[in-house]
């Protein structure tokens, strides 16, 4: 028996149930639209509304056949500038560079918060406030302003991704840096360790588990940032550009395919972070299959 087995059968059943329900719902949603199309005399290669439900140009819900054709159209040739693989790679690059920048900024703020109460009192409220505001609103403007100063292409998108991702990292890192056992901290003091040594040998390793939890949240956030930045500006590459283009062209099936592709990209990137986590924190054993299925931690919360 593999480790996944207790979840596997129910997950398959649920997936099958959703698939089985999809057909009737698809017909239910599309038949009125198909009827309207027939009534207006649109050129359709079908006679009845039932037949046409799977062949509409802009269906409410696309049929599996349409999705598959759309997937083949958007996937191949693999190196075409209008196909998903290249654009997804660009968006992934922006996300990862953004995450790296966010990690640097987050580390800086986290050390500030842990080291100085003055820093915490004067800046933390604004770091929190920057999250209760729809930061996405800033994206269109930031791209235009950066463009004026010659920063173009994927760099502004990475910066926006970083701007959106730095908060979870800051909070997770600050929590992690504060997490070592007080006894261990006292021990470092009795050894007369410098603050530098305390950070390097005790606080950083102790913060890793928190950091990776935060990183997973930040990865999704950064991906959202990158996609929105691509949507809201003139871009030539990326998932967001494909979304915007297909939205303008009213290619509904294409949008569904791109949506599924970006979902896959999100899952892939988070899995990548998870793999890195297992590599870097091998002392944290995965829980056994007898326990509850793994649930992500609650979002990092701030006490202000």
């Amino acid at each position: 028996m593999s480790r996944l087995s207790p979840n596997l059968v129910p997950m398959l059943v649920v997936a099958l149930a959703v698939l089985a329900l999809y057909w009737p719902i698809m017909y239910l949603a599309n038949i009125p639209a198909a009827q309207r199309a027939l009534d207006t005399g649109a050129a359709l290669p079908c006679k009845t509304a039932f037949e046409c439900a799977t062949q509409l140009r802009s269906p409410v819900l696309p049929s599996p056949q349409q999705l598959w054709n759309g997937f083949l159209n958007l996937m191949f040739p693999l190196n075409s500038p209008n196909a998903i693989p290249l654009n997804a790679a660009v968006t992934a690059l922006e996300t990862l560079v953004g995450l790296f920048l966010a990690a640097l900024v987050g580390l800086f703020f986290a050390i500030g918060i842990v080291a100085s109460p003055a820093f915490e009192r004067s800046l933390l409220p604004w770091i929190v406030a920057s999250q209760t505001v729809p930061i996405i609103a800033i994206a269109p403007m930031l791209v235009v302003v950066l463009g004026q100063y010659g920063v173009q292409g994927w760099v502004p998108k990475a910066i926006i991704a970083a701007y959106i991702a730095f908060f979870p990292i800051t909070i997770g890192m600050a929590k992690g840096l504060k997490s070592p056992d007080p006894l261990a901290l006292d021990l470092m003091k009795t050894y007369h360790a410098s603050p530098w040594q305390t950070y390097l040998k005790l606080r950083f390793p102790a913060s890793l588990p928190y950091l990776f939890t935060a990183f997973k949240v930040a990865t999704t956030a950064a991906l959202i940032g990158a996609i929105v930045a691509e949507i809201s500006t003139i871009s030539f590459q990326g998932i967001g550009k494909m979304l915007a283009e297909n939205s303008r062209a009213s290619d509904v099936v294409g949008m569904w395919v791109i949506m599924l592709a970006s979902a896959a990209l999100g899952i892939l990137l988070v899995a990548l972070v998870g793999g890195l986590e297992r590599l870097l924190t091998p002392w944290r054993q995965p829980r056994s299959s007898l326990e509850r299925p793994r649930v992500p931690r609650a979002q990092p919360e701030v006490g202000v």
Partner: protein
Amino acid sequence: MRPAGLGWGLLGVGLVLQLGFIARWWSESEVAPGGLRLLIGLGALLMIGGLARVAPGFAHTRNPVLGFVPAALTLLAFLLTTEALLRAYQVPPGLIPTPTQVLITLHEVRDVLLQDAYQTVVKEALVGYLIGCALGLLTALLVSRYIFLERGFLPYATLFSSIPIVALAPVLVKMMGIDWPSKAAICAITVYFPVVVNTFRGLTEVSPMALDLMRSYAAAEVQQYRWLRLPNALPFIFTALKLGTTLAMIGAIVGEFFGANGQGLGFRIQIEAGRFGFDIVWSAIIVASAAGIAWYGLVVWLERRLTGWHVSFRGG
């Protein structure tokens, strides 16, 4: 206690330097000479130094208003320095407007922005948020009750949390039209998954001792939920509800990027950013932030009312 007088002094001198420069350069149209620009830098440094000396004095206060003083001073210093720098370098207002200009614009276009805010916040974000939260709570109750659903559904919920929901926005807008219901749907879906996952954790992570006690009293399942599981879940639920306020605002604004009926904060931002009307963009951002913070504050207030007994609120 270090003498705070020096800190206040530094802060005051820095403020006066900055204000003096802004007044001097208010109606000039040339880039300020190097000496004056150095003065701005000096003023900024003095304010930072003053803040660093003043802020520790507020570090352990319990009065929320006093505790906010350092943050307010930081904002003031930041705004003044930005204003001074923008004026000193004569950055065109079409690129980065000065804070005063943004405030003036905010006052001028307040009627339009209030209508936008009503559309975005109340009709789209709030309606979507309520629907998403209600559905999420129901789902979590069901999932926590039936182990089969837990095993079959919950892994998908965690999977969905790593999906960029914005990609859904254009599809929903195409499906449901450009009016507000499509954006409400985006908000509902965005809010739904965090609520399910968090509520489920709260409902199931109860102490085994308490469960055993309930069982030994022969408590019915309804009673178990009413007196043990739901109260235990409240802090978790509120974490998700707080997170949801931000997500709903983002969902509504991004949804409007894909088509709106001529109203809404996201629509306004998109249109004005394209026209380089950044003073209006900033005004819209201020309105959106104010709405976001007020909403967040409302949820926090509710949380305090309903979970005042929880550890994280004890001892002030």
